[in-house]
C-alpha cells in the first residue's frame, strides 16, 4: 500500500512548516487538563491565545455552552452583523479513485456514477441562477482522471457566465493547476482534511490520491500561492477525536492566515452522515451541543473567519446557529448529480437534512431579521 506521507511523482511539494506546527499542537493537547477556570479565563479574553482555544474546546467548556453561545453571537454581530451568505453546491461528477471508508462516493461502492457534460453544466447552472443565488461551489469526487483540470476549468468558465462567486471543492491540485482555475474565474478553494490525526487518516484512506496526507494538508497554501482569494478548512467531525480535529482545523487556518494576511478564511463544521450502502456511518460522540461548542470556539478564536453550516444538519439547528456564529449556509441543495435542472442521474454523496429551496431559506432569513448576502465579491478584472 502507498505510504500515506510520501508524495506521488506528479504532486508538487512546497516549503511550509504549518503542518509541523499543527501536529505539534494537537499531539500535545490533553483536553482533560483544562478546568472551568481555564474556560472562564478564555471567555473573558478579548484576544484568544492557542491555550484559550484549547480550553474552549475541552470537556470543561461544555458546562459553559450558554456563555459560549452568548459571546459567540456577540462576536458574530460585531464582525458580520445580521448578514448571512448563501450558496449552493453543484456536484459535477461522483466518479472517484479514492477509497475512503466513510464516503458514499468511494471507489468500489455500488452507486450510480455520473458526470455532467458541458451542456448539462449549463442547464444545471441556469436552473440554480434562476433561484437568485450568485455563489456556487462546484464539487467532484477524488481523482483527476475522471474530472481533469481542463474539465474543471471549463466548468469555472461556464460558472462565470451565471455567478459572481465561484469556488471549488475538489481533489487537491498543484499551484499551476490552481492558477488555471483562477484564470477561469475560480476564487475560492475548499479542502476538508477530514481528520488531522495522520495515523487515523491512513487507516480510513485506503487507496487513491487522497491517501497522501501532507499533499492534502498543503493544498490551501498552494491555492493561495496561485492567487486564489480565499480558502476553506474543515475536519469531518466524528472520524477521530473531534476536539483534537477541531483544534487542528482552527490552527491550520490560523497559521495560514498569519503567513498570508490577505487570505479570506472560512471554516465548516461537518459531521459524519449516513451514506449509501453503509448506514452505520454516524458521528459517535459529536452531539449537537458539542458541534455548537466547536462552532463557537472557532468564532471566538478566528472572529473574522466565515463559518459555513452544512445542510447535513437539521433545519432547527441551522436556523439557530446562523444567529450564534455561523455566517454562511447552503440553500436549494442537491448532493446528487444533475438534479437541479432535471432528473438526477448520479447518486448522492450523503444524506442531507435540510431540503429547503432558496425561496424558503430567504423567507426564514427575513423572518429572523437577517439579510441574505448573495455575493460579497465583485469582479474587478
Amino acid at each position, binding site marked *: 500500500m502507498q505510504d500515506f506521507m510520501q508524495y506521488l511523482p506528479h504532486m508538487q511539494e512546497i516549503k511550509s512548516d504549518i503542518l509541523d506546527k499543527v501536529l505539534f499542537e494537537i499531539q500535545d493537547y490533553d483536553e482533560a487538563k483544562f478546568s472551568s477556570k481555564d474556560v472562564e479565563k478564555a471567555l473573558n479574553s478579548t484576544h484568544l491565545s492557542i491555550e484559550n482555544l484549547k480550553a474552549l474546546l475541552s470537556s470543561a467548556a461544555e458546562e459553559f455552552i450558554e456563555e459560549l453561545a452568548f459571546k459567540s453571537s*456577540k462576536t458574530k*454581530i*460585531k464582525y458580520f452583523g445580521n448578514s448571512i451568505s448563501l450558496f449552493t453546491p453543484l456536484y459535477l461528477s461522483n466518479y472517484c479513485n479514492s477509497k475512503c471508508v466513510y464516503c458514499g462516493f468511494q471507489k468500489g461502492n455500488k452507486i450510480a456514477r455520473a458526470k455532467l457534460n458541458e451542456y448539462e453544466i449549463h442547464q444545471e447552472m441556469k436552473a440554480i441562477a434562476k433561484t*437568485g443565488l450568485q455563489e456556487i461551489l462546484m464539487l467532484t469526487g477524488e481523482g483527476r482522471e475522471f474530472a481533469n483540470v481542463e474539465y474543471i476549468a471549463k466548468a469555472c468558465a461556464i460558472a462565470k457566465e451565471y455567478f459572481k462567486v465561484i469556488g471549488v471543492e475538489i481533489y487537491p491540485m498543484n499551484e499551476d493547476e490552481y492558477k488555471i482555475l483562477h484564470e477561469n474565474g475560480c476564487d475560492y478553494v475548499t479542502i476538508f482534511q477530514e481528520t488531522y490525526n495522520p495515523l487515523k487518516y491512513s487507516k480510513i484512506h485506503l487507496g487513491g490520491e487522497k491517501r497522501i496526507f501532507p499533499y492534502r494538508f498543503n493544498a490551501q497554501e498552494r491555492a493561495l500561492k496561485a492567487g486564489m482569494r480565499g480558502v476553506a478548512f474543515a475536519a469531518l467531525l466524528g472520524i477521530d477525536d473531534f476536539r483534537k480535529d477541531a483544534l487542528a482545523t482552527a490552527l491550520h487556518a490560523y497559521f495560514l492566515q498569519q503567513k498570508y494576511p490577505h487570505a479570506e478564511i472560512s471554516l465548516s463544521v461537518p459531521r459524519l452522515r449516513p451514506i449509501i450502502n453503509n448506514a452505520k456511518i454516524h458521528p459517535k460522540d459529536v452531539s449537537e451541543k458539542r458541534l455548537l461548542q466547536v462552532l463557537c470556539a472557532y468564532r471566538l478564536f478566528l472572529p*473574522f473567519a466565515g463559518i459555513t453550516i452544512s445542510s447535513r444538519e437539521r433545519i432547527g439547528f441551522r436556523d439557530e446557529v446562523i444567529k450564534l456564529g455561523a455566517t454562511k449556509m447552503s440553500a436549494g441543495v442537491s448532493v446528487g448529480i444533475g438534479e437541479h435542472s432535471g432528473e438526477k442521474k448520479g447518486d448522492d454523496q450523503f444524506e442531507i437534512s435540510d431540503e429547503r429551496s432558496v425561496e424558503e431559506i430567504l423567507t426564514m432569513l427575513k423572518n429572523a431579521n437577517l*439579510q441574505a448576502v*448573495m455575493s*460579497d*465579491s465583485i469582479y*474587478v478584472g
Partner: protein
Amino acid sequence: MDDKLKIGKYEFNSRFILGSGKFSLELIKSAIEEADAQIITLALRRAYTGEVENILDYIPKNITLLPNTSGARNAQEALRIARLSRELGCGELIKIEVISDSKYLLPDNYETIKACELLAKDGFTPLPYMYADLYVARAMRDAGAAAIMPLAAPIGSNKGLCAKEFIQILLNEIDLPIIVDAGIGSPSQACEAMQMGVSAVMANTAIAEAKNIALMAKAFSLAIKAGREGYLAGLASASEAKASSPLTGFLRD
C-alpha cells in the same frame, strides 16, 4: 444656526453617517427616523439588482448612498469598483476602502493614497478610510480627497478614540472635513470626537449591537449634536483653573 456638513460640493444637515455592513432593518429605520442620518454607506459588492431583495430595498430614496470600495485589495481594484458604482448611478461621491489584511480589516494607507489619485483624476470625490497619519493625510488631500476618514479604533471593536492624539493632529493640520470612521462604540465617544472638532462620525456596530436599537440611534444623534455644539461653543481648558476676573487689571503705564 447654519452649520452644514460640507463634503466637496455636497451639503448635509446631519453629521451622523450610518454604516450598513452589519445590516439590520431596524437599524436602518431607526438611524433615519431617530438619528436623522442622511448618509448611509454601502458596499458596492452587496448592492446587486434583480429579483432578490437586498439592502437597497430598505434605504429611502432621499438618503444619500455613500458607496465604498470594500473588497478592493489595491488601488486599481478600488478604481474599478468606483467606476462600476458610477455606472450603477451612485454618483461620484465614494468612500475608498483598500484592505489587504483579512484579519483586522485595517486600511492599507499606501494603496489608499494611490487610489485617491486615480479616483480624483477620474472625476470622483474620494473619501479615504485610513490610519490617522499626517503624511498620508496630506498626500490624500493633495491627491484630491474631499474628506479624510481616520479610524478611531479597529473596526467593530467599539473601543472608542484610541487614535485620539493622531486624529487631533489631522484636525490641526488638514483643512478638510475629518470624519471619524470605525471604532466608535458609545454615544459618549461620538460626543468626544465631535467636541474635538471632527466634522462627522460614522457608526454601525455600536448601534447594531445595542439592546434597544432605536434608543441607541437616538442617543448617538443627541451625542453628535451635543459634541458639535460643545465644539462650536469653545471648550474651556481643563488643564488649570483660571480666575474668572482679570488678575492684572491694576497695571498702569
